[in-house]
């Protein structure tokens, strides 16, 4: 039995005890980055205070400890994701963005040629768009997009047609703008049926719902630690062992080699092959602690809690403002997560966020690194509120009061 109680989680987050502009801090920007609990901060502190040494190289005691802690984190992540091949499939990168660059530059460059198609969606984050355009510009692949319907879902009506010539489908598990949760297993089956692979952007999904790579049946997964209660500076790239084993290295340098001579180099086995240079060791320790913390809460409980918060917020935004706050995303919690983008006629998202800040309420204005999606809905920007496991309905109370003030100020 999990002992999930969001108020206890909240108690673990020091920043949520702060007072900002005279109000208790209301953090509604977990979609951008999450707030680490004490256990994560302490694990990293303890690592630096007592165990810090470079990994994989030293024979002395603390170097062995550092290596063990770093590899423990890898095992923890593999368990958290139910990775079919275990820890050796887990590659530590800098962030989700670097994971996609690794995928495009290593797997993409080795397996794609001019005319091959990579199929994305109109709701992707730039991290899962730009590396493919870069590859297109380098070797002439085609980049194609699955559209988004007026009710904020992937338009899969012409999927068969879109899949023609496709070697890789790369899709977000959950939109960082709309909150839409995409049908990953269905897309995996459709991709595999035409001999294509499926890569998944887990940046918005891994911290908010259970991840089971075996059930998803995807081939690659990318995400960042900082959106799942972990530190910045470390991300994860997961791939099926056989695929990783056949991929050339991405970055070159120390740690990723088998041998180097004046004539050239050979590369190390996976995962070392993809971890050139001294890795983010303390960050891996922090990520390991975050994973254990989330497991302690149970991801099923986290998902249920955030669904409750989202349903409550959607209802109250609608009731209180009588449609003046337009939700850019699905209107119910059916296949939808706790990211709520909205638009208020007459009040620009920057101004909303500025007034909200005055109430200690943190939301994010802008295009959220999803410009094709913004364009699809004729928007330049939205304001976005997003929940984490430490969020409470009282955060929504503060949001609503502050929105009321913003609308009064701008006469909206």
């Amino acid at each position, binding site marked *: 039995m999990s002992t999930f109680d969001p108020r206890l989680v909240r108690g673990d987050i020091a920043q949520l005890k702060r007072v900002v502009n005279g109000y208790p801090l209301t953090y509604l920007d977990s979609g951008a980055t999450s707030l680490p609990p004490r256990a994560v901060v302490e694990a990293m502190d303890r690592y630096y205070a007592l165990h810090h040494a470079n990994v994989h190289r030293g024979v002395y005691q603390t170097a062995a400890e550092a290596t063990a802690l770093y590899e423990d984190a890898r095992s923890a992540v593999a368990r958290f994701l139910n990775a079919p091949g275990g820890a050796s499939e887990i590659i530590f990168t800098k962030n989700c963005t670097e994971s996609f660059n690794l995928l495009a530059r290593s797997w993409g460059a080795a397996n794609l040629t001019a005319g091959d198609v990579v199929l994305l969606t109109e709701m992707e984050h730039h991290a899962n768009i730009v590396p493919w355009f870069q590859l297109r510009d380098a070797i002439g692949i085609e980049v194609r997009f699955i559209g988004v319907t007026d009710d904020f879902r992937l338009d899969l009506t012409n999927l068969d047609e879109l899949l023609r010539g496709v070697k890789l489908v790369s899709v977000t598990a959950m939109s960082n703008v709309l909150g839409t949760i995409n049908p990953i297993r269905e897309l995996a089956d459709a991709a595999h049926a035409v001999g294509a692979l499926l890569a998944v952007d887990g940046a918005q999904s891994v911290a908010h719902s259970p991840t089971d790579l075996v059930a998803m049946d995807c081939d690659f997964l990318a995400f960042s630690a900082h959106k799942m209660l972990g530190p910045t500076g470390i991300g994860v790239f997961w791939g099926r062992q056989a695929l990783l084993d056949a991929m050339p290295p991405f970055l070159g340098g120390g740690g990723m080699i088998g041998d180097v001579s004046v004539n050239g180099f050979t590369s190390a086995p996976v995962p070392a092959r993809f971890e050139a240079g001294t890795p983010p060791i303390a960050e891996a320790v922090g990520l390991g602690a975050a994973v254990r913390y989330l497991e302690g809460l149970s991801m099923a409980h986290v998902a249920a809690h955030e669904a409750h918060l989202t349903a409550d917020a959607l209802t109250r935004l609608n009731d209180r403002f009588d449609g003046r706050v337009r939700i850019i995303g699905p209107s119910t919690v059916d296949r939808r997560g706790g990211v709520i983008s909205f638009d208020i006629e007459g009040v620009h998202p*920057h101004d909303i966020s500025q007034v909200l800040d*005055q109430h200690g309420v943190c939301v994010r204005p802008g295009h959220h690194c999803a410009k094709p999606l913004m364009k699809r809905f004729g928007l*330049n920007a939205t304001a976005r509120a997003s929940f984490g496991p430490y969020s409470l309905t009282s955060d929504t109370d503060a949001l609503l009061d502050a929105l009321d003030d913003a609308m009064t100020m701008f006469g909206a």
Partner: protein
Amino acid sequence: MSGLDDLYREIILDHYRTPRNRGELDPPAVRVEGFNPLCGDEIVVYLAVTDGVVTDIKLTGQGCSISQASSSLMSAAVKGKSVDEARAVIGTFKDLMMGPSATEPTPSELRKLGELAALAGVVKFPVRIKCATLAWNTLTQALDETSN
């Protein structure tokens, strides 16, 4: 809410709700687009210069209250001025936003700015400075193009 009152002065809200000089001009007026890639604010400046005088200026675009009010105030400030005077106003305004005396404009500086002084409070909100300066950078570019 005293902090916000500094930012959202009544003049700013007025120019945001009722922007001056909205519209387009046909060539030979020059047309220059300004973009804020971070937040997506955009401003298009149409500028007509005859015999060294800004005879007309029109604006389109979309963005936050600060970027839109700043562009509207700017258009009112430079319309009918000589190009040299317009460049001087730009200089004074940019000093206000980022010059060494950025935090506290002197009374004589404020007088020179007229209505533009309403934007002085933006300096206290560093992330909004680029909203306020977008139109002005675009105008500088437009002036450069007319002198080519």
